[in-house]
């Protein structure tokens, strides 16, 4: 551990807990509290990864979550951020973007081919000739992508959770801690999160050679500890902002969906790199990175360093490094006057040379690391005088020329940001309700000012919630000069990097602007600036500056790009988490399972499609089920149908309005088909209405339409204010349809209800007991046979099924599924809403004109139907049959063709044993509806199949079987 410093107060590492790990095949030792980057830097390793495009060597840049060139793989864990992830014992780390290892990366040749790979090269090359496209794709797939995915990686469940707070403070630096303290003292339930492993932010590492920061941190943490209503959560990232102050919080274990009443953004600012030739050599880093290495991990960032600065923070960094054994060769200050004042005095008293009005023109390396810097005078216009360069040997070059606010969550919340020339950064101008900004994110930079701004934000948030807190005076932004307006040093040989994620140089931006991509959003997409894993945290501001200069505008005029969640990379496992996919099942579900049901989804429900038997095909089973219904008795679970109870003196009037038919004259004890339209006259649902008592109705809807219909009925009821009560009984009632010529005889075994046709006619409804269970029975004819729908309370559903199956044994009772039901109803020509209709189908198009009682004063969709009817039909549903012996059977949705043009589509089709041919329903053009009209259907593979329009129903056209006299 050549570069580990002696113990420092406040360091994050635990020297009593050494950790052994490997990197690129070599063994190293760090400490608990280290991250891979710090442990490796302490061990003298300088090349931690390779850049994305040119495979240039890269080391530490920020130590602040955006060192994207040091992504590493640890076994099955991909793309660990080496500047963030905790070092663990036994880690076997590899840099992700190399071919042959980080030191011997064979793809480093790409750095020499940069001239052939300008920005946007892939938009212009590799398209022609087309025959090489596949080969090029393979090349690029091999070159791109980070890490190697192990498909044997175990599934790890990372459940999400919800949490709640009055005030969520994001950022645990001075302003955030002070804001939490102020809001907490006012009585708010406060949660403070910070992405770092420990709280304190810059208080812990930007010391400037004094103890002022660490003393403030101690005080804040002490005072916060006395507030039980404040929860401090380090190691927790606020990844985004969503409407109503929903903020996803990411920690190591999970995502927490935080709902806060107010949010204070105190995330500070990202230090921005200066742009000069070879500013990416290992050893060139942000000054704050050097300070983090020192005070968090007790690692000496360099032995001999230059500080390239334009603000006070650079001088403080020089003092911090000087105090910890780093020889400072020079402070190179872009400003002609330097920093001045006591801070510069302290630096100079430490015998550190200050070169005011100078810039680092380029960095030079050897053996993949920084070796010297070339420093030249620079004037106020940013022109470098290269006549007499100073070459300064160094292994560290720390950049401190400016800041960009960590304002992504402010942007996401709709905050209007403006560019404040006085602090040369974007600052909030108008915050969204419940949002507050404090500290550097608010353009406030001095320590005392940041504490005051945090206090102000905390109090304002509390007062906004109606809590008592003293009013706080606004805090002035500044001081001026924290950020230099043009920290960009042009160089004829380039390699002055602006975006380290994507290896973008200054010339890339100039070229893009020249090509016409002179809007910040277009520039982003063409150059890909800010589209890498760090999402532009270190590049967007400089990109804006360059574009502003090209356009002769200010950064404020250029504006910034859209800030989208997530703020930092979030593991996919956290996003996937535990899935909640509700499903509903009827009370007979287990009975179906035991009978070999094959399931199919119907909305949220699972329904038996058919009942499988060993050695039998699906078709054979369905045919057997159909046969049982046509010739004996079958039983189907129809409990998924929507079921609604309606009470009240205006119930009949209500039904008259929501359905197309007439119900006021429906006798007690009878049922009637009902069709529902929307206001545009489109058929949206159907079912059966039963009049149980004078003011008590019970009706069914389609399975998938139940929730929508009930919601619509509630809406209409609220609007009309009729004296009715609606109850959704869908899940509360089990229901079966017992159907077939033997159904009456069989049912007699279980009930005292008089089932004779005279007493219980077709379309009648009766109440009584079946197998001792209170039940409602309706004689319906959906499948075209004598049948009884039996509805019972859900808690008796299983008992009803068992009793029917037992009683049906002598009658050969056979359960049947949805597939058989589809066949049976199609043979009768009965439509299914949603299958034989679509989102535009009118009643006349599907032969439901008979169900429209247009002489009623009103029903929903009535006026639209009248208008549409006057226009004539667009299409019409007809029955058809195929020619006998057709080799190919079309499927639903296959097109109807006439005279070479599309004339419609098949909606339902089945090979019917009951009618002895293949029959179906199809939409056809008007003029093709007369029986005997021939048309063709384009089946699979383009095979044309002949069909003929025939009358429906196909089976039992007189309906004698369902009426079934005794």
């Amino acid at each position, binding site marked *: 551990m050549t570069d580990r410093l002696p113990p420092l107060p406040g360091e994050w590492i635990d020297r009593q807990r050494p950790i052994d790990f490997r990197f690129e095949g070599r063994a190293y030792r760090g400490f608990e509290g280290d991250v891979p980057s710090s442990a490796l830097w302490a061990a003298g390793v300088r090349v931690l990864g390779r850049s994305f495009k040119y495979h240039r060597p890269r080391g530490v840049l920020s130590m602040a979550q955006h060192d994207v060139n040091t992504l590493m793989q640890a076994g099955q864990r991909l793309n660990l951020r080496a500047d963030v992830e905790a070092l663990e014992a036994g880690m076997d780390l590899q840099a992700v973007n190399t071919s042959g290892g980080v030191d011997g990366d064979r793809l480093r040749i790409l750095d020499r081919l940069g001239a052939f790979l300008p920005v946007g090269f892939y938009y212009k090359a590799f398209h022609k000739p087309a025959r090489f496209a596949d080969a090029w794709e393979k090349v690029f797939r091999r070159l791109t992508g980070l890490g190697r995915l192990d498909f044997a990686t175990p599934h790890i469940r990372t*459940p*999400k*959770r*919800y*949490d*709640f707070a009055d005030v969520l403070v994001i950022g645990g630096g001075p302003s955030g801690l002070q804001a939490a303290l102020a809001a907490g003292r006012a009585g708010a339930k406060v949660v403070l999160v910070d992405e770092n492993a420990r709280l304190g932010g810059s208080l812990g590492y930007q010391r400037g050679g004094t103890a002022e920061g660490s003393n403030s941190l101690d005080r804040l943490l002490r005072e916060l500890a006395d507030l039980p209503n404040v929860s401090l959560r380090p190691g927790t990232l606020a990844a985004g902002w969503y409407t109503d102050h929903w903020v996803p919080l990411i920690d190591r274990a999970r995502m927490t*969906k935080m*709902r806060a009443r107010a949010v204070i953004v105190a995330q500070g600012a990202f230090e921005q790199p200066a742009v000069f030739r070879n500013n990416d050599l290992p050893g060139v880093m942000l000054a704050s990175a050097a300070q983090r290495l020192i005070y968090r991990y007790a690692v000496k960032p360099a032995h001999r360093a230059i500080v390239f600065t334009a603000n006070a923070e650079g001088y403080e960094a020089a003092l911090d490094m000087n105090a910890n054994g780093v020889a400072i060769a020079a402070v190179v200050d872009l400003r002609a006057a330097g920093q001045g004042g006591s801070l510069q005095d302290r630096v100079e008293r430490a015998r550190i040379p200050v070169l005011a009005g100078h810039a680092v023109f380029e960095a030079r390396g050897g053996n993949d690391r920084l070796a010297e810097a070339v420093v030249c005078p620079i004037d106020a216009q940013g022109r470098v005088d290269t006549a007499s360069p100073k070459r300064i040997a160094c292994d560290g070059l720390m950049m401190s020329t400016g800041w960009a606010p960590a304002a992504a969550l402010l942007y996401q919340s709709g905050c209007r940001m403006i560019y404040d020339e006085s602090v040369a950064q974007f600052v909030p101008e108008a915050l969204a309700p419940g949002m507050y900004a404090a500290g550097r994110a608010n353009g406030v930079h001095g320590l005392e000012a940041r504490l005051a701004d945090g206090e102000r934000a905390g109090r304002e948030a509390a007062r906004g919630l109606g809590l008592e807190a003293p009013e706080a005076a606004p805090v002035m932004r500044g001081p001026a000069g924290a950020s230099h307006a043009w920290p960009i040093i042009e160089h004829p040989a380039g390699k002055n990097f602006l975006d380290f994620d994507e290896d973008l140089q200054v010339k890339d931006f100039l070229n893009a602007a020249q090509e016409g991509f002179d809007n910040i959003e277009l520039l982003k997409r063409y150059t890909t600036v800010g589209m890498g894993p760090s999402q532009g945290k270190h590049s967007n501001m400089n990109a804006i500056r360059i574009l502003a200069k090209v356009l002769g505008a200010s950064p404020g005029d250029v504006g910034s790009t859209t800030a989208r969640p997530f703020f930092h990379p979030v593991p996919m496992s956290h996003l996937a988490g*535990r899935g*909640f*996919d*509700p*499903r*509903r*099942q*009827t*009370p007979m*579900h*287990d009975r179906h399972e035991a009978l070999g049901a094959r399931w199919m989804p119907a909305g949220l*429900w699972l329904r038996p499609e058919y009942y499988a038997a060993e050695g039998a095909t699906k078709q054979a089973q369905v045919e057997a089920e159909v046969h049982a219904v046509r010739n004996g008795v079958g039983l189907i679970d129809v*409990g998924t149908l929507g079921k609604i*109870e309606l*009470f*009240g*003196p205006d119930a009949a009037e209500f039904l008259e309005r929501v359905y197309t038919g007439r119900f006021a004259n429906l006798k007690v004890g009878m049922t009637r088909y009902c069709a529902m339209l929307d206001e545009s006259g489109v058929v949206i649902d159907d079912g059966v209405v039963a009049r*149980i*008592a004078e*003011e*008590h109705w019970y009706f069914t809807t389609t399975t998938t339409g139940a929730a929508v219909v009930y919601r619509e009925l509630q809406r209409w009821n609220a609007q009309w204010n009729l*004296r009715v*009560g609606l*109850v959704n*009984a*869908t*899940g*509360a*009632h089990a229901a079966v349809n017992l159907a077939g010529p033997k159904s009456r005889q069989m049912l007699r075994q279980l009930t005292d209800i008089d089932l004779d046709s005279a007493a219980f006619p077709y379309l009648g409804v009766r109440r009584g*007991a079946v*197998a*001792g*269970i*209170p039940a409602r029975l309706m004689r319906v004819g959906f499948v075209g046979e004598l049948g009884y729908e039996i509805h019972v*309370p*859900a*808690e*008796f*559903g*299983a*008992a*009803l099924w068992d*009793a029917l199956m037992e009683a049906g044994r002598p009658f050969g009772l056979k359960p049947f599924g949805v597939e058989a039901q589809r066949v049976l109803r199609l043979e009768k020509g009965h439509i299914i809403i949603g299958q034989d209709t679509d989102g535009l189908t009118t009643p006349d198009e599907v032969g439901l004109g008979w169900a429209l009682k247009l002489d009623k004063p009103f029903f929903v969709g009535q006026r639209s139907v009248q208008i549409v009817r006057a226009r004539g039909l667009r299409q019409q549903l007809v029955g058809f049959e195929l020619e006998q012996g057709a080799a190919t059977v079309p499927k639903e949705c296959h097109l109807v063709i006439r005279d070479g043009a599309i004339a419609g589509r098949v909606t339902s089709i089945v090979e019917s044993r009951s009618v002895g041919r293949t029959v179906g329903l199809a939409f056809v053009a008007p003029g093709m509806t007369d029986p005997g009209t021939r048309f063709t259907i384009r089946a699979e593979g383009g095979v044309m199949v002949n069909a003929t329009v025939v009358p429906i129903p196909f089976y039992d056209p007189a309906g004698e079987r369902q009426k079934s006299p005794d």
Partner: protein
Amino acid sequence: MNAPRSSALHTSLKARGARFDTLLDMPAAVQVADTDAQRAAALGIADVSCLRRIGLKGPRAGEWLSQRGVAVPADPNSWVPVEGGLVARLARTEFLVEDGPGASTVTRIAGELESGLEGVYPVWRQDCALLLAGERVMDLLRETCNVDFASSAHAGEAVTLTQMVGVSVTVLRQQVGSRACHRVWCDYSAGVYLWETLTGIAEEMGGGAVGIAAVWPALVAG
């Protein structure tokens, strides 16, 4: 009527080896495992669907209940205890009445409501009814529902109608013996899904399905 009532969760509980006793004409899981007590201390979920309940709707529903001596909560989204059971006001004109052990309010009023009365309409409740108890109930709720049940707005006499793991539920806090519990009702058809999801999460928290005896002995003693 001689057919047994059946909980939506009967098969699921049977598969777990639960011991059933008939409570209120329904086979009810009184014990799921020998470790019920330990799991209930952490996070126990019991099926109490056997309790009799009925719903009422209509402009006169509150008044009608009061006339029959049934206490009615003054405000929507609140509840009052009644003879070991409860009356919850789900909306201005909608109520849920659930009998506690030994009570008969539901049976008494259900007989009068067959096809409704003027301004009073029956809601035949067939809920899957759960009881949640133990130290980690709040953890479970925070993983499954976006309502802050720790806040005063959802404590005490409050009734919360919301969604849990995508299922519409009614939730309230109820003192059951010496335990502060959460009660959850959902539609019968969603019961198995809700139960399997909640007990699965509870197991990860050291709890899981428990019998009624572990959390509501008075109901078993009945």
